[in-house]
């Protein structure tokens, strides 16, 4: 495992005087070089460590430090074509160099999205924009409302009546971690962050971590992956902002079970409201003494998609460059600061309370045999009723789109389901699919995080594919060769084919996709070929013109 020295030095100050937060703070202040050097000295690392980290993130790198407003460049806003107009309006108020970008701020249901004054907004007109800008500095939560509904027993979307009663459940399971694991095993809860890994397994592995050299219990951590980076996805945002206690309880209970006294929420910086709401919820727990000595810590992301990848996320918290780590060792063995760590997605944690309250068997009776429970789906603004829907696994996709989404507003040729690495499903395949891991996988798509982005018929598929490769190239951590160079060259090829009299050698393109798919270290480089191959397969006619014929 690389970077053990830097990791260890960072861990000396740990979460309280956190290296990453220090770097972010100096960057936001646009602090002079000597302050960064002082920070390096204080952490006993060389300057390159600080520069390496600060130059990585959208919100900390030097060229972005003067930005005052960030226009969403996410997929949903792109296909909705709202951003050119928004950009124009914003330019009326800001100098060009003050305008930056953010990759999805969770307004996929209304678009026209941007981030300003540590809040996120949508503004379709200059009047709306002017009003928003005039409210700078005022507290309060800007409007970000969308439909919420469920087609089954609400596990995630049900209301919590009284927080203290809600947490009382922990008393029952506190002394019996094995029972927690057993219920979770019975429930067959699988990770909601994309990979679908059985959750109980992580708890089990971390419990079994041996004592440290001096015979004491090893430091262990719970980490919640709230970096929901998939453009088009805002279901974690929903949970963080509307159901924070479901998430926090899941982490707390996990901590009690494995012997971890600290839970870290890594929340993306593009969700400033989520950060505020969760931190209020944590304060509420502390004030009411509901979580004993358990500590929560929120780490704010600084604009990087790859930080959603679990090992990059751990490096990020540590203040290291969020380059993906090799595995094994897995985070359960060597996680945050090299300590055993249970790391899972927001939605995964949010299920735990219901499972323990109602029993693993009750949960397993929801959904299909292999995909149990419910899944939050986020629908974009092309639907007549965009919003977050809690859908029982195995529900036909058509039901979700028609009964909940109420159908689409305009001509749509395909949907990308599950984020930028999720499949591109042509309209005609929707009828054949249901919302669960197996149905999507066996048809060459993915459940992923179950966000839905619609691709309008008049939106050129080549542009969409270019966008995916550009996104990957932009967000690539730059560690492994296939992704670092390959995604960039792929993007260049698609651009050249559109802008010049140039046809892409189809063998070269096939080699490139294979290299990305089987050669990449993580699922960013490894995942992007899937939607591209879907596109090439289902939209051949549209795309043929850009490729050589043999």
């Amino acid at each position, binding site marked *: *495992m*690389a*970077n*053990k*020295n*830097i990791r*260890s*030095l960072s861990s000396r100050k740990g979460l309280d005087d956190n290296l990453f937060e220090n770097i972010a703070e100096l960057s936001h202040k646009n602090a002079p*070089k000597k302050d*960064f*050097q002082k920070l390096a000295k204080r952490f*006993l*690392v*060389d*300057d*390159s*460590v*600080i*520069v*390496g980290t600060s*130059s*990585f993130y959208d919100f900390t*790198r030097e060229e972005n430090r003067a930005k005052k407003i960030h226009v969403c460049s996410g997929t949903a806003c792109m296909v909705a074509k709202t951003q050119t107009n928004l950009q124009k309006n914003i330019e009326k108020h800001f100098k060009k160099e003050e305008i930056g970008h953010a990759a999805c701020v969770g307004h996929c249901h209304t678009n026209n999205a941007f981030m300003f004054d540590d809040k996120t907004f949508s503004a379709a007109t200059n009047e709306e924009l002017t009003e928003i800008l005039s409210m700078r500095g005022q507290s309060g939560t800007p409007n970000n409302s969308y439909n919420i509904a469920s087609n089954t027993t609400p596990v995630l979307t049900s209301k919590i009546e009284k927080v203290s009663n809600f947490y009382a459940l922990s008393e029952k399971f506190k002394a019996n971690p094995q029972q927690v694991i057993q219920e979770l095993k019975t429930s067959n809860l699988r990770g909601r962050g994309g990979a679908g890994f059985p959750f109980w397994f992580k708890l089990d592995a971390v419990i079994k971590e041996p004592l440290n*050299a001096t015979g004491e219990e090893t430091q262990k951590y719970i980490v919640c992956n709230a970096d929901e980076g998939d453009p088009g996805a805002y279901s974690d945002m929903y949970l963080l902002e509307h159901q924070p206690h479901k998430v926090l309880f899941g982490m707390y209970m996990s901590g009690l079970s494995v012997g971890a006294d600290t839970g870290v929420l890594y929340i993306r910086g593009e969700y400033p409201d989520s950060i505020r709401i969760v931190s209020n919820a944590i304060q509420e727990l502390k004030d009411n003494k509901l979580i004993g000595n358990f500590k929560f810590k929120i780490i704010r992301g600084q604009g*990087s998609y*790859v930080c959603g990848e679990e090992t990059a996320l751990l490096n990020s918290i540590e203040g290291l*460059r969020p*380059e993906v780590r*090799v595995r*094994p060792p897995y985070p359960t063995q060597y996680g945050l600061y090299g300590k055993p760590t249970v790391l899972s997605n927001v939605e995964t944690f949010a299920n735990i309370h219901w499972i323990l309250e109602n029993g693993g068997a009750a949960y397993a009776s929801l959904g299909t045999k292999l995909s149990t429970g419910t899944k939050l789906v986020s629908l974009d603004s092309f639907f007549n009723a965009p919003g977050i829907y809690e859908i029982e696994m195995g529900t036909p996709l058509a039901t979700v789109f028609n009964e909940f989404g109420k159908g689409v507003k305009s001509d749509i040729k395909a949907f990308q389901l599950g984020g930028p690495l999720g499949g591109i499903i042509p309209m005609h395949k929707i009828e054949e699919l249901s919302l669960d891991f197996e149905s999507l996988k066996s048809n060459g798509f993915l459940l992923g995080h179950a966000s839905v982005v619609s691709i309008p018929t008049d939106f050129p598929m080549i542009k969409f594919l270019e966008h995916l490769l550009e996104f990957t*190239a*932009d*967000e*690539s*951590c*730059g*560690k*492994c*060769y*296939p992704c*670092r*160079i*390959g*995604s*960039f*060259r792929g993007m*260049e*090829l698609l651009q*050249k084919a559109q802008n010049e009299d*140039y046809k892409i*050698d189809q063998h*070269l393109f096939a*080699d*490139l996709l*294979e*290299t990305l798919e*089987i*050669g*990449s*270290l993580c699922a960013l480089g490894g995942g992007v070929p899937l939607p591209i191959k879907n596109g090439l397969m289902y939209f051949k006619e549209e795309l043929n013109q850009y490729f050589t014929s043999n």
Partner: protein
Amino acid sequence: MKAFINNIAYDFITGETILDFVRRIENNKNAIPTMCQDNRLENFGSCRVCSVEVALQKDGPTKTMASCHTPVTKDLYIYHNTEKIKRLRKNIVELVLSDYPTDKVFPAEDKKATPFQETIAQIGIPNVRYPEGENHLELEPDRSHPYIKSDLSQCINCFRCVRACEEIQGEMILGMSGRGFATNIIKGFDETFDESACVSCGACVQTCPTEALTDKFETKTLIADKTVRTTCTYCGVGCQLDVSVIDGKIRGIQAPETAEVNEGHTCLKGRFAFQFYDHPDRLREPMIKKNGKFEEVSWDEAYDFIAHKLIDIKNRHGADSIGAISSSRATNEENYLMQKMIRAAIGTNNIDGCARVCHAPTAYGMQESFGTGAATNSIEDLKQTDAIFLFGANPLKAHPVTGAKIKQAFMKGVTSIVVDPIKTSLAELADFHLQIRPGTNVAILNMIAHYIIKENLVNQHFIDAYTEKYEEFKAHVENLDMDELETLTGVSKALVRKAAIAYAKSERAMEFHGLGVTEHFQGSKTVMLLSNLAMMTGNIGKHGVGLNPLRGQNNVQGAADMGVQPHQGAGYMDVNNPENQKYYAEKYGVEKMPEFEGLKIPEMLDAAIEGKLKALYIMGEDTIMTDPNTNHSIKAFENLELIVVQELFMTATTRMADVVLPASSYFEKNGTFTNGERRVQRVNKVIEPIGNTKPDGQMVIDVMSRLGYDQPTGLTYDAAKVIEEIADVIPFMKGLSWERLGENGLQWPIKEDGTDTKMLHIDGHFKKGIGTFHHFDFEESPEISSHGEKYPFILTTGRELEHYNSGTMTRRTDNQTILPKDVLEVHPRDAKEKGIKDNETVRIFSDRGSVHVPIKYSKNVKRGVLRTTFHQPEVFINLITGSVGDKETMTPEYKVVAVDFERI
């Protein structure tokens, strides 16, 4: 457990990666190509060309995995050369080449292929089908550093340099900036090598698989006539070096990865500072001073002159009017011959070495405590220890490769305690830094022992079973007044207590000490108290523990082993003992040996002033520059009838000589050096002697012969034969032979059958039968009690990484460009009170004299303490150092000098 390679089952080792497994089974390090992997670095998984297909059943569905970081599992089927894999590798290379200079794909005609060029040739060099796109080919090279240059247009982003910097050297100078395709290697705050805090170790250059990082000698791609492995001359670590020679000239040095001592690493001195060897300043002809001026003479004339004079002086004043100073830089064989010449051919025990000015107290103190004056353990034990107690040493500067290993351990979180008046970078990293007032070593050690006893953390079983006189020691420290010692040392007793507890509670704790222990009035006592600490906690006789002196010069250990001491002969036998005299006489084939022990260096100088010593024969030492109180030394030298010096360069000492003999450097001769962990390693001749020089050993044999003693191994210096003789004389080197030394040397004791010893006093079985506790009170140095009032500042001296001692060699290399001057570190407030600005030159003065030196504001020293180095002749710091020395061994107290300073 078994796994399959191409469907054939083999046993694998638990934890082994697929890459190692396949390489091992196929016995081919190229069985699978790699780019980002280096055996010495953590696996990283960036290049992906090491990918293989794996399946859970024979010819079953496969997954592609990077073999370098994927462990083999039971019944795994590995297919490492399938069409799919070959295609993948080639496609990756194509991507890499799309951002790589086309004229660097193949090696230039007169150059060796780089590892990258070899790898792509192995995979097959594809046509790049990608149209020209964005690239990094325009990046400007960085030529700011005297040794290292970067040309990142050739960088393939393998991160090896970044990892080497962090994982081998323990620095983090190199980093990566940006992300995705825009990632870029940076130095420090994205600046040049020169501006960065790079310590020039060259680890990054050595691991870089391309020429993106090279040294100015372009060592990586040299096609050498031959490459000779030898042992570095610059410190007691004893790094192995691979020296490349073209047309009889040294062209570059790499560190062999197979070297046990340095595992492919060195510091900048070993790797880069070799240009001194054919510097125009090298002495090339023997010279005799005639009418106050040196004249070149023939070897015969020089030898005859020396022999004639020595015999004359001996006849007139007796053998004891002759003395010799041997050198810890010379080989064992040469040191052995030198002491033999003085003892057997001249007939006096007046032989001493430069260990006198450094580690004599270590040898003495450890002999008193344990019975052997050498490191109890090996450096590799650092991998097994739980705590490191570093006392009075800055190995990052003086023993860089060991220092880097210690730094790694500190950073990774081993319990770490540093006692040092200076806030060194290791002190900064340590859990506990006890920043004592210089000279209070005994006091702080008494405090530590006090708390260990008080907290009941002693290992009573070890004490009872293997040691003596513990009770007296215990009674002594138990009753000490901690408040008083707190005031004396300037370190809070609460902190000392915590450090003591941390040390004593560690399962395995290793002590290291340096000249900050020995170069003191109470030097030997401090060594014995350090020994106490190890004994009272049972930290002796197992791995990861012990007392491990960091030897100053490269062969301090060896010189002492060879008998370069006035009281002990080769193999540490007491020369006052008639039995031993008989033994030596027999071995040396002479009638009798001198009866009484001889003079130590300071005594020789005093004897010269008194007129009792008439001749001094010096091998490779700049006594005038390096010994304390220069004016005193000069006075002594002026009183001598004959001074003979064997040297590489003109020095302050040779200038005062009557005869100067030009010596061959260590590149020009064979022999052995013994490093700080008792490891005897070969020095192999790399090139022929420069000019008309001769190896020191040859000169000694020649002079000896003219004195009437013919070296039995022949009149030509032949290291291998001298070793045979040494093995015959020194009991604990019985099994030593040139052949057996092989590539990695042997650690003494070496048994007759050639087995060597990693660790001494195993399980508490001390060499002297039983370990002995000693106890001492702190005593203020006379330097302070006599001069402290008049000169209220304490000056302490140390070394910098770039230079070696008086700098005769390193100042004649580009190291001088990196660090051109000595400076005086002063606490800013002390300087400001005197109205002195940063970088201003001041006059610093003591009871002995004064020198001028530029100051540097530094918070690494406490108020009242000053620190400087002694590498540059311009400053000549020994004009102000004093004559106080360790009571037992007379090692000078360089570390405590009462001084004051003022504006000029």
